[in-house]
């Protein structure tokens, strides 16, 4: 098996690779932002003292934690159009339907995990910390900013970064519904050219480098902000 770098750099292939990478990154970024927003909403909802709401959020979280991400994507892509009103369906179909549904599914999936990570961070800060902060004269905001958040984030951020890594890798599952992201593109180029080795190496390196950046970010955070000693 000879490896031809020139194949990857050729004018036929390179733009295709870049397009795949760009879609992967875009899918990741959109899903991350939407997922984080939903997660914050979920955390807020859990604070509301209504039993049925608490229960609903729990079901939402458990569904997304216990069903494979690719199945969640399929439910959205194949299933949702059946129950959406016709007008909305038409409106959606004018855009990039696959991308949109994949993004929603990935975002909701990530949000369930994000929410749990945020909550576990908040839980580790004992209530007495707030009392202590207020008793030395800090305002509610000051207490949150200087005392509660720094402690909670130390606990929450590492699993959140790890989750971001998983979300990044999970964007590859969007190929199942035909989103032309990096994995789909890899397979497409391979089918066209039969140069498996070159395309696979390129795709693997792309994922690996991006993942290592995220892992390094996690390692840096752990070193810069080690978790407070366990008390």
């Amino acid at each position, binding site marked *: 098996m000879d490896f031809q770098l020139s194949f990857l750099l050729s004018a036929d292939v390179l733009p295709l690779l870049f397009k795949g990478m760009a879609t992967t990154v875009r899918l990741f970024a959109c899903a991350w932002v939407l997922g984080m927003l939903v997660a914050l909403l979920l955390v807020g909802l859990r604070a509301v003292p209504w039993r049925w709401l608490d229960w609903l959020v729990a079901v939402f979280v458990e569904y997304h934690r*216990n069903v494979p991400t690719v*199945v969640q994507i*399929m439910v959205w892509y194949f299933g949702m159009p059946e129950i959406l009103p016709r007008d909305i369906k038409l409106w959606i179909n004018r855009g990039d339907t696959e991308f949109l549904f994949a993004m929603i599914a990935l975002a909701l999936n990530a949000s369930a995990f994000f929410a749990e990570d945020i909550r576990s961070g908040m839980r580790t800060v004992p209530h007495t910390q707030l009392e202590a902060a207020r008793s030395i004269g800090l305002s509610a905001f000051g207490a949150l900013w200087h005392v509660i958040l720094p402690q909670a984030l130390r606990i929450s951020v590492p699993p959140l970064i790890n989750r971001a890594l998983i979300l990044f890798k999970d964007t*590859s*599952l969007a190929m199942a519904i035909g989103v032309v992201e990096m994995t789909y593109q890899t397979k497409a180029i391979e089918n066209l050219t039969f140069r498996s*080795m070159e395309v*696979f190496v390129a795709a693997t390196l792309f994922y690996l480098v991006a993942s290592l950046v995220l892992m390094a970010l996690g390692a840096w955070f752990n070193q810069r902000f080690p978790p407070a000693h366990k008390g």
Partner: protein
Amino acid sequence: MLDILHEYGLMFLVGTWPVGPLGGFANTLVLAGLGLGLGLSFPLAMLLALARTGSIRWLKMLATVWVYTFRGIPLVMVVFWAYFLLPVMIDTTVPAFATALAAIVVYESAFLAEIVRAGLDGLPKGQMEAARSIGLSYAQAMKSVILPQALLNIIPSLVSQFVSTIKATSIVYIIGVQEITFSAQQINSIEMTRALSVFLVLAAFYFVACLELSQFARWLEARIRARQLRPA
């Protein structure tokens, strides 16, 4: 949803078996079970973890590269590689199931290795020191003192990883492995107009199995923790 389950329940469960090969959820469980344990991924993970916690530099490096690589790429890519490389390496055609299994074994070994390593690192340093002090060799200390404790402590994480593996197998239908997601795709192509029900039934299978296992893991975790906190 119930009518779909009623009509295609067997296909979800076992695929076309006994007429065809075993498929459906049964095959999902077989694939995940073989992929994670039963002499395949776990021994590999143990070796990787021992190499990473050990003191032999080049072994440590090799194991670290292995772990970071497979943690850093999507399973789909590993499946592609297996699909492409395996036939070249052993010079025959490889069945889809074996291809998927190989991909899952190497992929999961990286995650398992991290779990085992956490178990080893989680023990107090004094355990190894005490074991060496009474004259045990490194291997004896590992076997009699360190591993029995570490492996007990990581059982809940192993169950959680089994859940992850079950979920991960849902992607191997792309190379034609007849597990439950494959069944759902087939049923969907027969039914055409009831996709939501079909895929919700599919989701329900995973949901029930994984939720039960996750709760089992939590229960184990609580039990093992309670054991450790027993009054001294």
